[in-house]
């Protein structure tokens, strides 16, 4: 018996020793790539920038949020879809929204997610050993993207949180910085980007931000600042580069065949790949697509008669036909627009009509993935650069110069020339040229037209120029995160 006990004691002790001596618990976590092990090689630097472009087409970036905040709030469009479906969207049409509406949070959070991706790249890529010129370009692309996202935020919310590095993100996310600081950052980022970004890219990189993308965006930023000389510095560089022009047919500007065309200053790259739901996740076209039988979408963001009348008043049929797709018409791509019947889209009476700029012809629809997910989102087009140029020139008194730029845009639309344009002429042109491209709300606020144009819908001057800070952001730090006036 004694013998046995000794033996077993020995076994037991050995066992215990084995476990305490071995590194039983020391192993790398499975299938997890710790962040500190990322951002070490050039390939990862590249991936971190691709991620930013990929994220640009996420739901918060191109789905409901921008459509609702930037178009449905205006005289251009109404909610659409069935009566009562997603009824909260009407709160935007009539300026009844409150800080807790999730669309506002989506808009806010979505853009900060993009900013985080840019900040990750900006804080980490400098530490990576790699080709210096490549490194500089990647950093410039991140800065362009950050400027793009902050430009949305500062226009939508005014004073905003302003994280600029991975390190200061936590602290800054709980504070609101003055609008001017945000604009200063945007301008600096774009200047930095302009110094480095290439004028164009080869196959496999087409669609990434070029120096012209940065210049175009900077021109628009200065437009909002009314810094006319600085606007013109950028617009003339773009115009005189000779790299850009207008496509002959306005309808064709928005077709998949003409993505990244000579008219494109910057557009968000989207694609449809069979079986790959993640790559084909842009819902930009789907949410606005024809609703009902033989349709290809949900039928939101329906153009108003007011917009149609504006085209008619200008005698503008080409852009009207390309912008408003009425039920019953057959598009140049051969699709007959069908779907729901008269009076079945909420907010309009009469014939259903849809956004023609987000329309993807049936021949490009791929079964099993998001409808129309291939459609690139046009962020900035050459025609807008011309209009920005014209507006700066009028503001500076150069009416002749302004007319040249303005009439290039009008000519393409087969409209007569305006020899001595006023600011209002240019603003009206902006509405027709850029309708349904998510410019209208910010433009009305910028130009001061908002109270007059949107007043009947419920716009209150002094309040509705900016949206409320999302309730969640306020809840995160009630002492420092103040609410915008009136909310």
């Amino acid at each position, binding site marked *: 018996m004694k013998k046995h006990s000794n033996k077993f004691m020995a076994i037991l002790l050995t066992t215990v020793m084995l476990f305490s001596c071995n590194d039983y618990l020391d192993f790398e976590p499975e299938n997890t790539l710790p962040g500190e092990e990322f951002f070490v090689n050039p390939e990862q630097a590249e991936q971190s920038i691709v991620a930013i472009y990929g994220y640009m087409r996420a739901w918060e970036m191109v789905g409901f949020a921008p459509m609702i905040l930037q178009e449905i709030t205006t005289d251009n469009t109404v909610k659409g879809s069935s009566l*009562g479906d997603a009824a909260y969207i009407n709160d935007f049409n009539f300026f009844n929204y409150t800080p807790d509406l999730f669309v506002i949070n989506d808009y806010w959070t979505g853009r900060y997610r993009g900013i985080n991706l840019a900040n990750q790249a900006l804080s980490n890529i400098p530490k990576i050993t790699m080709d210096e010129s490549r490194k500089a370009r990647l950093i410039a692309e991140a800065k362009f993207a950050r400027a793009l996202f902050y430009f949305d935020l500062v226009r939508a919310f005014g004073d905003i949180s302003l994280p600029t590095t991975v390190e200061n993100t936590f602290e800054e996310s709980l504070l609101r910085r003055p609008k001017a600081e945000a604009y200063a950052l945007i301008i600096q980022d774009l200047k930095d980007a302009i110094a480095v970004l290439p004028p164009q890219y080869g196959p496999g990189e087409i669609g990434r931000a070029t120096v012209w993308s940065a210049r175009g965006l900077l021109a628009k930023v200065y437009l909002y600042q009314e810094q006319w000389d600085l606007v013109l510095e950028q617009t003339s560089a773009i115009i005189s580069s000779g790299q850009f022009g207008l496509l002959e047919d306005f309808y064709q500007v928005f077709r998949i065949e003409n993505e990244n065309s000579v008219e494109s200053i910057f557009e968000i790259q989207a694609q449809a790949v069979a079986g790959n739901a993640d790559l084909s996740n842009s819902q930009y076209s789907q949410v606005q697509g024809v609703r009902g039988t033989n349709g290809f979408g949900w039928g939101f963001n329906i153009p108003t008669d007011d917009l149609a009348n504006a085209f008619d008043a200008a005698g503008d049929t080409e852009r009207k036909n390309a912008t408003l797709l009425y039920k019953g018409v057959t598009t140049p791509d051969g699709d007959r627009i069908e779907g729901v019947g008269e009076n079945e889209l909420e907010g309009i009476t009469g014939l259903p009509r849809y956004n023609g700029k987000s329309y993807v012809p049936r021949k490009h629809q791929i079964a099993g993935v998001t409808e129309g997910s291939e459609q690139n989102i046009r962020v900035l087009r050459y025609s807008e650069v011309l209009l920005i140029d014209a507006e700066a020139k009028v503001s500076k008194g150069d009416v002749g110069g302004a007319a040249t730029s303005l009439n290039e845009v009008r000519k393409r639309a087969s409209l007569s020339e305006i020899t001595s344009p006023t600011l209002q002429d240019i603003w009206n042109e902006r509405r027709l040229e850029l309708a349904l491209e998510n410019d209208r709300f910010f433009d009305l606020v910028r130009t001061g037209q908002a109270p007059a144009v949107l007043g009947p819908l419920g716009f209150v001057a002094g309040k509705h120029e900016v949206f409320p800070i999302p309730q*969640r952001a306020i809840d*995160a730090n009630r002492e420092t995160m103040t609410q915008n006036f009136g909310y």
Partner: protein
Amino acid sequence: MRKALRLVVLLLFVSSITWAQTQAVTGKVTSSDDGMPLPGVNVVVQGTNRGTTTDAEGNYTLQIGADDKSLVFTFVGFRTFTTPINGRTTIDIAMESDITSLDEVVVIGYGEARKSDLTGAVAQVKGEDLVRVPSATAGEALQGRVAGVQVTTNGAPGSAPTIRVRGLGSVSSRTEPLYVVDGVLTDDITFLGSTDIESINVLKDASASAIYGIRASGGVVIITTKRGNKEQPRITYNGFAGFQKAINKVEMASGPEYIQLLNEKDAIAASRNNGTITPRDPANFPASTNWYSQILRETPLIQSHDITVAGGTEATQFSLGGSYFSQKGLASKTDYERINIRSSVESQVAKFLKIGINANLSNSNQNNAPANLFNAAYIAPPAIPVKLSDGSYASPQAFGDFPNPAASQEYYHDLTKGIRLVGGVFADVNLFKGLTFRTYYGADGNFNQNRKYIPYYFVSTTQRDTTRTLTRKIENYFTYYWDNTLTYKFNINEQHNFTVLAGMNASEQRFTMLEGRRQGVQDFGENTWYLNRGSQTGQFSDDAGNRYASLSYFGRLLYNFNERYLLTATLRRDESSLFPKDNRAAYFPSVGLGWVLSSEQFMADQNIFQFLKLRGSWGRMGNANIPPAQFIQETTTGGKYGVLFPGGSEAQQGASITTFRVSNLFWEFTEEVDVALEGEVLESKLSFELDFYRRITKDAIFSVTTNGALGATNTDYLANNADIVNKGIEASLTWRDQIADFKYSVSGVYAYNHNEVSSLAPGTLGIYAGNINVTPTTYTIAGHSIGEFYGRQVVGIFQNQTEIDSYVNGEGTKIQPNAKPGDFKFLDANNDGTINDKDRVFLGSAIPKYNFGITLTGGVKGFDLALDLYAQGGNKIYNARRYRQLGNENYDKNFYDNRWHGEGTSYDYPSADLSNNENKQANSWYLESGNFFKIRNVQVGYTIPSSVTSRIGVSKIRVYANAANPLVVFKYNGFSPEIPTPSARFNNLSDVDLNTTSQGVDTNVYPIAATYNFGVNISL
């Protein structure tokens, strides 16, 4: 067997030599319950050491002397019986079972102990009490059986109920108890049927459960599956069959009622913007569909069969068995089926060595319903027919993007198959007297397959699938436990009794998942749903895995002085790979003291208390059950971040750091104090146990809502920053008696719990959760319970414009100037003249304050009756079905009947325009009482007299009829007041759902099923 006989002969021989001047007494000991012989009963002459035990047939022979007065019969689980000899030579005894006796042996961690010697709170439920409730899993049957254990049943076939021991101690980690099945630690016992179980022991306080260290803080449930015994092998069959029926169904608005509600709603909505609408003409919508009757079965069947062969000899005991359980779900096309095979063998192979093995193999098939099916049926417009005249499914698209629930159900195929093996082997080595070394290797292997297939179908442009996608997923879990323990049992002077345990445990869990998906799989029947039949274009695969290991050392001292003063002390050191290397070890101590007052001299003369014990304990436990790698700022890759740039041949991979995490995350500590009094009075007919406890979770892992401006894709992250208190009272009372032939017992359990987040680390913000369409309904903050409802207080319904205009604050500011008649009138809590989120107030807790269960059993002349009642309450339910109104969702009939539709029509229900932004802010109107009472189970049985059954060679036949949930009483306007809370399951990464802060929000609850069944128990 022969050995045993030899032993008995030897004993008899020895005793006959010693007491030559004696006389033999013989007899047979049987159980008064069923008349079966009881082997192994101790028969002792009172006041002496002389005695014997009964043999396999229950017979005994004992030599007694002339001075011997009485015999004492003792047997575990039976009431000790003393009888005077009075010169008799044959004494047959029927012993009464005594399952709540304080002498019962309960299973504690890594050992067993007499309940009377315990200093901790341990409750035992026997297998035979579990099987009464016809359910797929044993967990459900625990409802109302153990004070302090709250069970929320979940109607889906085969799904696990939510079980909580002593309240809710964690916000972000697992809150379910740890299950120990035959030594294997697991989070999931759905593989076990009630018939597989011998006993369940619930360790409720720290003194009992701290031995399980980091896994103990949710309480520990130790399950012992069926064991062999030393009797002749006996075959038993238990089976039942019956049907279920949905009860307490919510009546929905009919087609015409729905159209009327929509017209009322749209008119009010339009009037807010000074518009008008053209009302829908009811004549255009003649249909009136009850979607629930489309998706529910009328009387789905349920059945269960179990055969067990158990027996053994003095040296070797075994139990072998198999069971089959099948349940058709209330929802059409859902079902659950399980086959279990189990074996347990233990053998004393040498004097010093005992070895054993046990294994439970389970194989289950489960057909699942589409996600949110019940919610879909609730919101679906009734003014749409199920099918059109051409036989195709009708689309509700005229009212919005609703799916046709019947079509969703028809085209959805989702089958889960699981194989699970839980078992282990052990060797007990008796080193010298009292010292035993045990090594135990337990393994838990789980192999799950899931197949989802959706054939080609087209209902509408928003409800269609043209891709013929097949998805197959394989999940594989494997966990092993290796325990090595030394137990030394000794006493000093027969007064100081010691049981000392020291041990170690090493365990590792691994999980892998592989998923594949292809489109274009043509539908030629279920047998053709294989990935290779699909298209390679666009195929998709996914892979995941994790690994977790822990290493623990533990020790326990059980000491008692004359069974009067009791001490339990435990210490465990745990180290876990879940946490950062320099921060992953911790100690978990506990100490418990007990004082058996009834053994004291000063109590000797009283005869009120047959037993009285005061006990108290303190201890610390841990909870490390969070998803792994929560402290790692992960890199995200994947298609969403990829881009196919024009001119490129393939998409470029994107990757970056998209999450926000706290890197010094550590486990939670729970400290608990328990004070209790237990005893027996009135000749032991009444036994009671009363516990008071207070447990504090320190550094509780609190999920912090990610602030949007952080730009993280995780909506929340974890940090150790809260203290949570649970305090409560538990009482158990059992009365058992016999009046003539009528034996009966009444037992009740009651538990009261108070839950509160007692403090938050400075700078930590409360959690808004329970989001419905991103609007939070709960707020978790210091001073309130976890997930307390939070929103506006409704003080009335505006009847007319005058009321709206006259609703002003002290300064005359109109409080709700934009309201319309029929809207909610909200309390201006901060009196600032406007209603906004600053007016939110706490509206009640989702956590039930109390629950109680009552069990009555009785029997006379072969008939027996058992009645189980259960009630709980003190909580609120958020009726999120009504609250989800975004547009044209359907309403329930109760709303239709009571709604405001003109001045004076309702003072407590609003108008149909619930989807208005103001009306759908979280508010008190959507909160309803969660109180309910139910007849959990009622059973009537009859045992055929053995005189009849013995003629056909059967020792026992009992038949019974049973009804489960025949009556559930509640006021809540929903299908069931039991709202299951999905909990964070470490084992199931694909299903991590950290939402104890979102409990009690009813969005998609399975209807309640009443079950009626007949059963039979046969023993050969």
